[in-house]
């Protein structure tokens, strides 16, 4: 129906097919995500360390809040801004990684299409792919900018 194997499997009730499609996603996903995972983890650590040294954390502990609400609600909430920025920028390496990952796993996506057109010097496809990827990249980072206002109510876009 949708030509997306997992969705089709679920919609038609063919659960073994959906499960199989899901299993074929494991290795490409791990390959593609590992690089960004490391960078996001590092950024979150640095940002959390910074946030947990702030005075309001001491205030929160002083008024008797337990460990988890302080760390999640006061620490992570305030540490999230730079992390979200990095996630937005990482979309760039995910798009690049898609070209490599789709090539290695013979996954018939835009990335693989671009790789093939690079081999055959099919310039319109290469340029179109670059434009598409850049558009996605810019749009995601626009969303990140909008997200700032939600994460930090002090930020307002007039």
């Amino acid at each position, binding site marked *: 129906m949708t030509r997306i194997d997992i969705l089709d499997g679920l919609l038609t009730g063919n659960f073994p097919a959906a499960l199989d499609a899901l299993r074929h996603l494991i290795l490409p996903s791990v390959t593609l995500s590992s690089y960004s995972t490391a960078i996001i983890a590092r950024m979150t*650590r*640095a940002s959390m*360390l910074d946030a947990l040294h702030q005075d309001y954390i001491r205030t929160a502990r002083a008024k008797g809040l337990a460990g988890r609400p302080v760390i999640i609600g006061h620490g992570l909430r305030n540490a999230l801004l730079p992390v979200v920025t990095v996630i937005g920028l990482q*979309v*760039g*390496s995910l*798009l*690049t990684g898609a*070209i*490599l990952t789709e*090539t*290695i796993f013979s996954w018939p996506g835009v990335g693989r299409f*671009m*790789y093939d057109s*690079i*081999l055959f*010097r099919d*310039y319109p496809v*290469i*340029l179109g792919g*670059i434009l598409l*990827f*850049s558009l996605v*990249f*810019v749009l995601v980072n626009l969303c990140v900018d909008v997200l700032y206002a939600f994460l930090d109510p002090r930020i307002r876009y007039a």
Partner: protein
Amino acid sequence: MRRAERSALRMAVKRFWRNVNARIGFGLIALFTLIALFAPKIAPAGYDDENLLGRLKSPSGLHWIGTDELGRDVFSRVIYGARISMTVGLAAVSGALVTGALLGIAAGYVGGRLDGLIMRMMDIMLAFPSVILAIGIVAMRGPGLNNTILAVSIVNIPVYARVARASTLAIKEHEYVTAARAMGARAWRVLLRAILPNAASPLVVQATLGVAGAILDAAALGFLGLGAQPPTPEWGAMLSDSYKYLLTAFWAALAPGVAIALVVLGFNLAGDGLHDALDPRLTQG
């Protein structure tokens, strides 16, 4: 002044050397630099010595990391590959550093319309994912090692321009810049003697980390067939040639992969160490 500079540098070197990770990073860089310099002495075979009867042979006393799909000694090719990757990484970052630093310092110092023009151009370049833009540049100019260096260099210019501009904006308010101007120094002299040395440390840190990124980018281009052309033993190209034989001859793909990872790790560790050493205000986390 001179003595103070030297002791500040010595303090930074001391701090760098106390950091175990930084030492490991420096060691890895030194190791691969030596390998690159003395590749013909170290490698037991040439990088394009084919032996079609000994294809995809497993590691042995003769071929330490086995042979690839054309019967070439993988160990020798990885050794020679260090030359390519180190050259590409250093050349691309040098180009980007010089261009970016000049643009950024000029933009930050002059300000006004020039600042707006330069930084908007940099913003446009940053709107593209870097490797995607590099692919576009190489696809237009044709594949090859020189175009790879050029492309990786161009896409990294905005990073250095922004770092240089940010430092310049802070530094140009200091009294010694006003003093230099009051003494009648020309603009280029103020830029090179007063501003550049004081803006250098964030640029050096960024450049060290940048070499790691440049080597990865170049390997990605090589993997896509846009980098060095056969039989040049470029690590990315070696990976793309050999990953098809992963199930029967994993060594041919593993060796260049490990080499890329080690070099990139080395530059990242050294860059982090430099960052900590050159910025003493940093609290240890």
